[in-house]
């Protein structure tokens, strides 16, 4: 891996749209070319080098490129958007749309991200060390396809509409989630280790999708029907993966846990599941 370091200098008051901070874009370019990559601030166009000091090595291929943003950039949007390979590490916060529509590689943010992190993600791994705001892994307005693959791991809390219109992939929130998690979900998995707020799985259709609540649940929609309490074998696979693949140590305590199984949302003829871990 060749490491390219972007050190934030002076940031404008309005957000910087910097989808060029992506291994696919920088790979194969010179440092001078990278400094000149276009970013948008409002209706004006600037060079990336106006906001970041650019140093380090550039790889020929995206898969061998690592980009380190050495500082907090909460107003820089679209970091790693549409990335397909390589890795990005943000040593601090990242702005809206971080990792949106990414299809591969690994993007790690040490602190918080703002809205739409991992929106319409297709693949890869997005790690958020702090909180992620609203619409994490969600579908953009007007789209019926949210996350289609990959994994989002949020160490802190996530806001509302987490995983809306999700089709495939996995979202793991170690903290709480806001209302409407998994709204319109049609596949994929959401794991919530903290408190799940109301309207969980609203209008979810199913297609193998489920929301696993491993902490408290504020309330369930009446359109979810209780089936049974059992120990699903499949949960053992997920809990092992969470522990061994993602380092979610809490998962181990749920390996043999019984789950209450609810099916819905019957308001839309859905067949999705909400699995709520019984207190052991």
């Amino acid at each position, binding site marked *: 891996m060749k490491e390219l370091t972007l050190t934030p200098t002076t940031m404008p008051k309005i957000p910087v749209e910097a989808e060029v901070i992506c291994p696919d874009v920088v790979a194969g370019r010179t440092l001078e070319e990278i400094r000149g990559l276009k970013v948008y601030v409002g209706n004006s166009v600037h060079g990336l080098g106006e906001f970041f000091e650019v140093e380090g090595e550039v790889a020929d291929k995206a898969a061998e490129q690592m980009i380190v943003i050495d500082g907090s950039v909460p107003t820089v949007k679209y970091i790693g958007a549409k990335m397909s390979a390589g890795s990005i590490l943000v040593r601090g916060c990242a702005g809206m749309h971080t990792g949106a529509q990414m*299809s*591969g590689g690994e993007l790690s943010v040490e602190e918080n991200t703002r809205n739409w992190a991992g929106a319409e993600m*297709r*693949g*890869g*791994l997005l790690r958020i060390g702090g909180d992620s705001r609203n619409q994490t892994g969600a579908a953009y307005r007007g789209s019926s396809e949210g996350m*289609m*693959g*990959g*994994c989002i791991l949020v160490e802190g809390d996530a806001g509302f509409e987490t995983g809306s219109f999700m089709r*495939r*992939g*996995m979202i793991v929130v170690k903290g709480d989630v806001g209302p409407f998690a998994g709204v319109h979900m049609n*596949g*994929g998995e959401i794991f919530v280790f903290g408190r799940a707020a109301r309207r969980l799985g609203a209008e979810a259709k*199913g*297609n*193998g999708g489920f929301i696993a609540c491993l902490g408290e649940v504020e309330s369930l929609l009446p359109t979810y029907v209780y089936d049974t309490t*059992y*120990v*699903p*074998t*499949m949960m*053992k*696979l*997920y809990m*092992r*993966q969470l522990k061994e*693949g993602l380092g979610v140590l809490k998962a181990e305590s749920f*390996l043999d846990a019984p789950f209450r199984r609810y099916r819905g949302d019957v308001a839309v003829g859905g*067949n999705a*599941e909400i699995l709520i871990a019984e207190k052991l």
Partner: protein
Amino acid sequence: MSFMLNGVEIEDTFAEGFSMWGSRIVITAVNRRWANIAASTMTGFATSVIACDCEASIEREVPPDETPDGRPGTAVMVFGFSRGRLTTPMLNRIGQCVLTCPTTAIFNGLPEEEADAMLDVGKSIRFFGDGYQVKMRMDDGWVGRRRFWRIPVMEGEFLVEEKFGAKRAVAGGNFLVMGETEAATLEASERAIEAIHTVPLVITPFPGGLCRSGSKVGSTYPFLRASTNTPFCPAIKETFPDSQVPEGINSVIEVVLNGLDEKSVKAAMAAGIRAATEVEGVKWITAVNFGGKLGKYNLGLKDALGVS
């Protein structure tokens, strides 16, 4: 021609292996007992394709830390003459013997990158769910891609992987253990089986891994396509005109093994032969072949043992 190993005469010949399709699956259950029950039931009546729909046996017990769901597992290998003739018995046997067995789940034991084909076994078994089966997708676009089916059953839920890996494999690896007494021959054969099962990706489908009634192709009866291996029956060695039982040999047991590749079969044959030669009373070891006319693999004993 022959050579000596631990004081036992080994004939310089070869076992004639033939090509089959093989698959490997891992059955897990709440404890070792139920995993083994499911595996034993599934591999019943699967000694030889002469009269069985497939050849199958337990490969090994899999510790919980090596199984996908962290429960005790048992690895089973199944062999058939074609992809179709492998898929059908797998489907039937999993459906009747594993699906029905309490607490079990079943996983592919031959990864796609090592397989020549992926068989839609779980994909067919899912219909047992009568529309209530749930597709389970794991690792999309991330660390890989795995597909399972969750089938509701009266006891809870049966989890089955969608596809099972299969590859062109080697069947018919064998050697004959010949001893002065029945007891010595049996003990040597048992030790051979123990040694063979230390080699991965190999099974011994006969009872306890052993076949006391090795067969030859054809018979004097027109309706019977295989009959007792007369040249190797000590009881008729003076009566049968072309007996191949050496002087002083009173019992012969055949060890038959199938493996996912030639290298594994040879390694297992070598391990088995070495173990068998350590038993007193064993005098001669040879292998069965048809002059190289039937099978495409000539598994030479000398070659397997690494003897120059």
